[in-house]
């Protein structure tokens, strides 16, 4: 019998009962009491045959926040029951610490889909670049979920600047994987990354991939991407046009002025507003006339940001003339 105090004893005994109802009542009561000395029986309850008992035991352990429960909770990540896995993952997200890295990397070697998927998610909490060699093999996994989880994890690893094996995922057959890959590319500094993002921005059939590519290019702020962004300003999907205009706010270049002026009449107000901001950042006085025409725009945001852009350009001109 485990060493527990008198208040807990009847409930710990009830946890060994043959009827599920009794075990449910026992584990729920132990959760409610919230006594640290109940941790050992609760860890045993993680192996209960009933998934409801397991779930309540996980929640009870989570509330006790004792690091000794990390390893037993890891075992629940391979459970066939999705609710048990989800509860264990949520608990581990709070309990996991950098010292658990080696244990996570060991678990990643296990040939179990759920375990691998959940460990890839947990590695994002640790941010340690030592995990990189263990994450890379998942870029070539047969399962799209693992490829997607691995590429997301990559962008959470500190100090990782280049990762050539990740580049091939931009051509993945699954759109979700490509969407996450384009977002991760915003944080990589491989030579090919900018070119691959530009190609994805204009050629990918999925609009979310194109939008994410525009978003990532804003992080790179590379002037060689201007012609691609200019093309993306005429994309059929409004979100791609919006994020391209946003990226052009960070790379001021006069060659995009005509396309940005056209965007001032876009049917979506977000694009009109972002185009006005981008024109203000370029600072060319030739656009003042176009900006003034947007001062009676039906959208208040567009009017406010157009006025700010006009003020900005006029102030720059005044400073130059003085």
């Amino acid at each position, binding site marked *: 019998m485990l060493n527990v105090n008198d208040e807990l004893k009847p409930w710990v005994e009830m946890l060994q009962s043959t009827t599920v*109802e*009794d075990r*449910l*009542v026992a*584990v*729920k*009561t132990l959760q*409610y009491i919230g006594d640290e000395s109940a941790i050992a029986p609760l860890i045993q309850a993680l192996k209960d045959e009933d998934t*409801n008992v397991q779930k*309540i035991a996980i929640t009870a352990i989570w509330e006790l926040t004792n690091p000794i429960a990390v390893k037993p909770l890891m075992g629940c990540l391979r459970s066939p029951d999705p609710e048990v896995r989800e509860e264990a993952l949520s608990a581990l997200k709070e309990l996991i610490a950098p010292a658990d890295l080696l244990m996570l990397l060991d678990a990643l070697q296990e040939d179990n889909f759920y375990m691998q998927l959940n460990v890839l998610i947990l590695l994002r909490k640790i941010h340690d670049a030592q995990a990189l060699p263990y994450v890379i093999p998942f870029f070539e996994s047969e399962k799209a979920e693992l490829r997607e989880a691995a590429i997301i994890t990559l962008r959470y690893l500190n100090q990782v600047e280049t990762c050539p094996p990740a580049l091939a995922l931009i051509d993945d057959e699954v759109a979700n994987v490509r969407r996450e890959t384009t977002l991760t590319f915003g944080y990589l500094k491989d030579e090919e990354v900018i070119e691959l993002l530009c190609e994805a921005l204009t050629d990918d059939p999925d609009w979310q991939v194109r939008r994410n590519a525009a978003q990532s290019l804003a992080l790179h702020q590379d002037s060689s991407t201007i012609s691609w962004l200019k093309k993306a300003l005429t994309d059929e999907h409004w979100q791609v046009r919006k994020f391209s205009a946003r990226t052009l706010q960070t790379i001021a270049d006069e060659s995009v002025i005509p396309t940005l002026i056209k965007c001032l009449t876009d049917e979506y107000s977000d694009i009109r507003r972002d185009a006005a901001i981008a024109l203000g950042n370029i600072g060319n006085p030739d656009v003042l006339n176009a900006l003034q025409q947007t001062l009676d725009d039906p959208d208040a945001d567009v009017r406010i940001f157009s006025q700010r852009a006009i003020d900005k350009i006029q102030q720059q001109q005044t400073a130059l003339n003085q």
Partner: protein
Amino acid sequence: MALTTQRVDVPVIVDESKCLEKCNACIEVCPLDVLVKNPETGKAYMKYDECWFCLPCEKECPTNAITVQIPFLLR
């Protein structure tokens, strides 16, 4: 607090087929103490027609036996 006369009208509905006789989770968490055990059946029920619709009873029930019906205007 007003005693409930028509149990079907109360906002906290307990599915007696799922309610566990030895369990007190919902009674323990209710801030208004409106839930009690029926001594005859051992099942929980809403004794007083008073509810804050705070939902811990529904959430804490280990067998999902409780349903709280939130009035339309509070949703």
